[in-house]
């Protein structure tokens, strides 16, 4: 593989694709990086599932308030006009269709849009947290992850072998090598990192890829 996009570069690409005025939830881990790249003039409101609508940047050391943390337990601030709700209301917002976009990490994404992101196969413990609610509730679900797992295996798969978070929920995947849509006919590559050829990307992937500039139904 050639050059990779850094986590911050992935975050910046994703942030640029968020529509103005949307309510967005950023999952724990890599998706949190997106917050630093939000265009300030676009009126995007961040939601944190522990009851914050209008999440601000992380708190500076002197501004830490133990009563104000985000879903990743990081001390945070609020933006002007923020609202605090209890857990039932926060998840009503998620399931009830008010969450425009969510960004989650993943262990595996299947070509059907199935997501596995809460427990590795064979592990006895996993933490589902709010992932299952967010996966079925967000109007559009993006995944932000590295293209390959730490053993070099493709995280884009035909069928998930890890325990599922939800079926047919992922719409787009942002990675260090490519940005990929989940379409009715499977994975469609929108964009590739510099120097990443179609062939190299397909070789690294455990499912069939189509490319945006390729006619629907065409084969490699």
């Amino acid at each position, binding site marked *: 593989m050639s050059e990779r996009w850094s986590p911050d570069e992935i975050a910046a690409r994703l942030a640029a694709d968020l529509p103005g005025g949307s309510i967005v939830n950023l999952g724990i881990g890599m998706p949190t990086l997106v917050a630093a790249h939000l265009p300030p003039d676009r009126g995007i409101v961040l939601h944190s599932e*522990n009851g914050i609508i209008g999440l601000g940047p992380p708190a500076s050391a002197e501004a830490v308030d133990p009563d104000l943390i985000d879903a990743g337990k990081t001390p945070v601030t609020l933006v002007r006009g923020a609202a605090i709700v*209890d857990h039932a209301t926060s998840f009503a917002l998620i399931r009830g269709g008010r969450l425009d976009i969510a960004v989650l990490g993943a262990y595996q994404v299947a070509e059907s849009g199935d997501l596995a992101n809460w427990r590795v196969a064979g592990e006895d413990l996993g933490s589902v947290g709010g992932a299952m609610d967010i996966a079925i509730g967000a109007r559009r679900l993006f995944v932000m992850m590295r293209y390959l797992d730490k053993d070099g295996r493709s995280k884009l798969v035909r069928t998930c072998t890890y325990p*599922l978070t939800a079926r047919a929920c992922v719409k787009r995947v942002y990675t260090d090598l490519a940005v990929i849509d989940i379409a009715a006919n499977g994975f469609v590559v929108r964009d590739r990192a510099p120097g990443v050829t179609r062939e190299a990307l397909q070789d690294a992937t455990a499912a069939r890829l189509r490319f945006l500039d390729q006619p629907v139904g065409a084969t490699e």
Partner: protein
Amino acid sequence: MAEVRASPLSSEKLRETADAAVGDVQSGSTVMVGGFGDAGVPFALIDALVRRGVTDLSIVANNCGTGERGLAALFKHGMVRRVYASFPAQAGNGHFAESFRSGRTELVLIPQGTLAERIRAAGAGLGGILTPTGVDTLVAEGKQVVLVDGRSYLLELPLHADVALVRAHTADTSGNLRYRLSSRNFNPVMAMAARCTIAEVERLVEVGALDPDDVHTPGVFVDRLFVAPAGRRE
């Protein structure tokens, strides 16, 4: 649990010590514990429960604690037979992991939004809720699937408790509670779902000092109060 409840507007709910507040919690009870991470966790009441030394508890809480204090201490001392949680596995939770892996504690993993709604259903007198969360996943095992307008939902049953331990910022002496910032989290739904709700609060004010519009949990849901100004964190 006490059979006689104090009048919703009386000031007889105040206890001088955390030990007195949890003094009749029995072994084998189901205990809800509010909080998310360390925010809104009633640390002083949990400390008292550890001192009381009850066993075979069923705990309902989002997390399973980290470090040595709070929920972690309940696992450390072998007090938990079963835990209902959404986020049990996390860094620093060695006492829960050890209790789980030794077979002492059974884990019932519940998605976070479903956990909140099952608790809310209990407090609201409902027979359960239907949620699309978890359909076709491991958490659907053994649950009834109900089709409504062509969409599949899981029937999730109410989660009741004998005792709820919650933490609020301000209480008046009649038990009206007001939470602060993200310390609210599960506390309001848990306060409604238990037969006996014990609130640890940062500060206490006289009846009438809380604006009725600012009351998040009405005193009718609160049985006992304990003031712990700085008792929340290690």
